C-alpha cells in the first residue's frame, strides 16, 4: 500500500490529537437561523442548512493544524431532494393504483437501494476534503448489495449471533473503499473485540432487566404476556411506561457501550497509505455519560440546547482521537473527479440512513 510514497519512516512520529474548535454559542446562532429559514421556506432552505451544518463541523475540526472542508452547494442538495421527493410522490400514488404495481415497485426499490447507498457515500466523500485534498469513495454496487442486503438477512437467520461479523463487514466496506486523494484507507480488525463489545452490551441489557423485574415486582415480566391485560388501560399504560424505561436504561446505553468499544478497535486498526495510523481512546463510561446526559439535556430544553450537546460530543470525540503521522502531511495529492449527483444523498437524508464513516 505504500508503493505510491517514498519509504515509510522507520519510527512513528508523536501522536497528534484531533481538535474541535467550534463554539456552542456560535453554532447555536447558525443552527437556529438554519431552522427558522428551513421552516419559513417549507423545507427548501434545509438543503442550504445541511451544507452550512456540515461545513461548520468540518471547518472547525483540525488535526496537525489543518482542517476539513465540505464543498457541496445548497443547490446541488436541493436538486437531489426534489428528484427524490418527486419519486416518493409518484411511488406513493402508483402503489395505490394497483396491488401488483406496488409489489413491483417495492422489489425495484430493493434492487436500487444498494446503488443509492453507494452514490450517497461517493457524493459525501467527493464533497469532503482535508488539507485541500478531496476524499473519494470507490465501493461497488455488488459489494454494497452483499453488505446492506444479503448479510443482514443472513445475520437475522442466525438470530443476530453473527451481528459482529456484519458490523465489521459494513465498517470494512465503508473505510476500505475511502481514499484521501490517491491514498488508501485500510482497516484490518480482528473479530474478537466486536464480539466482546456485543457481549458486554448484552450483559448490560440482561442486568438492567433483572434489576427492573426485581424492583417493579415482576410487572416487567408482563411485557411478555400481553394477552391478559389488553382490556385494562392502566395496565397498558404501565407497560408502555416500563417499555420506555427499559429503552432508556437498557437498550440505549447498551448501544452506546457497543459503539464506544468498537470505535477504538476501528481507529486503532486503520491505516492510511504513507504509514499514517490512527488511535482512539474513548472510554465506554464517559461516552455513555455524554450521550445519555446530552439526550436528557436536549429533551428537557425542547431541543434548544441541542447545539451545545453537539459541540460537547464533537469536542470529546476529537480530543480522544489521534493521528500517528507516518511522514509529512504535505504529500497527499488529489485528482479531478466527477462530483456526481446528490440523489443517493437525498434519499438517505429522507430515510434517515447514516452511511458515512464511523465517526
Amino acid at each position, binding site marked *: 500500500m505504500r508503493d505510491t510514497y517514498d519509504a515509510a519512516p522507520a519510527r512513528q512520529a508523536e501522536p497528534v490529537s484531533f481538535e474541535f474548535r467550534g463554539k456552542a454559542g456560535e453554532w447555536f446562532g*447558525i443552527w437556529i437561523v438554519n431552522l427558522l429559514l428551513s421552516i419559513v421556506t417549507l423545507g427548501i432552505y434545509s438543503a442550504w442548512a445541511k451544507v452550512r451544518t456540515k461545513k461548520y463541523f468540518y471547518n472547525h475540526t483540525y488535526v496537525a493544524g489543518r482542517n476539513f472542508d465540505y464543498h457541496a452547494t445548497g443547490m446541488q442538495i436541493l436538486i437531489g431532494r426534489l428528484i427524490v421527493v418527486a419519486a416518493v410522490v409518484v411511488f406513493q400514488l402508483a402503489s395505490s393504483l394497483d396491488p401488483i404495481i406496488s409489489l413491483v415497485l417495492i422489489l425495484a426499490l430493493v434492487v436500487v437501494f444498494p446503488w443509492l447507498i453507494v452514490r450517497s457515500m461517493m457524493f459525501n466523500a467527493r464533497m469532503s476534503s482535508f488539507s485541500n485534498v478531496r476524499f473519494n469513495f470507490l465501493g461497488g454496487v455488488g459489494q454494497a448489495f452483499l453488505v446492506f442486503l444479503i448479510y443482514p438477512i443472513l445475520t437475522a437467520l442466525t438470530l443476530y449471533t453473527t451481528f459482529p461479523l456484519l458490523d465489521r463487514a459494513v465498517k470494512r466496506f465503508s473505510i476500505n473503499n475511502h481514499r484521501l486523494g490517491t491514498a488508501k484507507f485500510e482497516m484490518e480488525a480482528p473479530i474478537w473485540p466486536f464480539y466482546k463489545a456485543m457481549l458486554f452490551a448484552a450483559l448490560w441489557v440482561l442486568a438492567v432487566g433483572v434489576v427492573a423485574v426485581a424492583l417493579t415486582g415482576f410487572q416487567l415480566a408482563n411485557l411478555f404476556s400481553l394477552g391478559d391485560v389488553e382490556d385494562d388501560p392502566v395496565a397498558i399504560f404501565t407497560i408502555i411506561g416500563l417499555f420506555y424505561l427499559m429503552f432508556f436504561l437498557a437498550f440505549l446505553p447498551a448501544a452506546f457501550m457497543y459503539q464506544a468499544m468498537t470505535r477504538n478497535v476501528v481507529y486503532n486498526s486503520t491505516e492510511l497509505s504513507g504509514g499514517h495510523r490512527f488511535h482512539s481512546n474513548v472510554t465506554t463510561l464517559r461516552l455513555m455519560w455524554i450521550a445519555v446526559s446530552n439526550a436528557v439535556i436536549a429533551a428537557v430544553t425542547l431541543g434548544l440546547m441541542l447545539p451545545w450537546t453537539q459541540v460537547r460530543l464533537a469536542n470529546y470525540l476529537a480530543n480522544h482521537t489521534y493521528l500517528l503521522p507516518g511522514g509529512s*502531511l504535505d504529500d497527499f495529492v488529489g485528482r479531478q473527479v466527477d462530483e456526481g449527483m446528490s440523489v443517493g444523498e437525498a434519499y438517505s437524508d429522507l430515510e434517515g440512513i447514516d452511511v458515512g464513516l464511523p465517526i
Partner: protein
Amino acid sequence: MTDRETTYLHIRMKGRAFALHSSREIPCELFVSDSGRAVLTSEDGATVEDVAAEDLDVASPLGSAPRRITFPGGLVFETSDHDAVTQLTGATRGGLLHHYEQFSPRLVGVIAAAVLSVWIIWRYGLDILVTAAIALTPPILVDQIDRGTLKTIDLTMAETSTLDDAERDRVEQIFRTLLDDLPADQREKHDFTLLFRSMPDVGPNAFALPGGTVIMTDQFIEEFPGRDVLAGVLGHELGHVVEQHGLQQTYRSLGVFILIAFLAGDTGPILEDVLLEGSLLLSLSYSRSHETAADEFGLALSHRAGFDPAGLAVFFEKISEMGEGPPEWMSTHPANENRIEAIETFIETLDAP
C-alpha cells in the same frame, strides 16, 4: 468578486496557500494594492500569484472558520484574518446571513419566529399546499386509485356479497335518492358507485374511496336494515367524497413526513420525535374533524332527501352499546357519545322538511 466602487486600501493578510489538488502548505502573504492587483508572496519573497483582485473567489463567512480565497487557477489561500477579508469583500457574499447568525439576544426573536412559523404553517400553510396538490391531481388518477384500492380490498379482506337482489335494490334506491339531492356539479365531478361486499372480519361498516366508490358490508345491512340509518351512513360517506377527505389526508401526511425528514438533521433525534408524535396526534384531530364534517354533511343531505336524520344517531347508539373505544385524543374518530350529542345539536339547526 462583485463590482465595487471603493478603492482597495493596501490590504495585507497572512495565511497559507495550497496548490490545486495538493495538501502541501505554503505559508504566504496576500497583498491587495490600490490598483486592484492581488499579489500572493511566499515566505522567501517569491511571487506565487499576481491576479486582478476581482478574479478572486472569496467563500462566504461561516462562524469563525478560516476564510478561503480561490485563485483563478485553482490555488487556495486560507487565512484567519477575518477583518482583512471583510475589508476586501465589503459587506457582501453571505454577510447578512452571517450577521444574523451572531450569538446575541436577537436570537430570542429568531426562536420566537421559528415557533410562530411552525404554527402558521401547521394552521394555514399545509392547507394551501394540500389544496394545490388536490387541484393538480388528474381525475383519471383518482378513479384509478379507487380501482386499485378496491382490488386490494377484494384480495385481502372481502368476499362476494350474499345479499339478495331485492335487498340490494332497496339500498341502491336510497343511495340514488341521496345522489339526486347533491348539487349538480358534484354529481358530475365524481363517479359515484355503490358496491356490496361481505366482510365477516370487518363487521358492520362502510367506506368511501376518493373517486366516489362507496363500499357497504353485508354485515351492516343485516345489522341496520332501517332506511334512515342507511341513508345517514351513506350520506356520511358521500360527505367524505365530496369534501375530498381521503386525498387531503394522504397529501397532508406525505407533506409533513417529507418536511420533518429533511429538518431532522437540524432538529436532532429528540425534537424530531416530538414533532413526529405531535404531528401524529394533530393529524388524528384532523381526521376527527373530518368525521364531524362528514356527519354534518350526511345529516343535511339525508334531511334534504326526505329521510329522518336521527337515523345516524341510532347507529352510533347501537355501536357504543357494543363496547368502549380508546380515549378520543388517540383515535381517528370522535367518541360515540360526543358524536351523538353533536348530531342531536346539529339536527335542531335543520329546517323542517
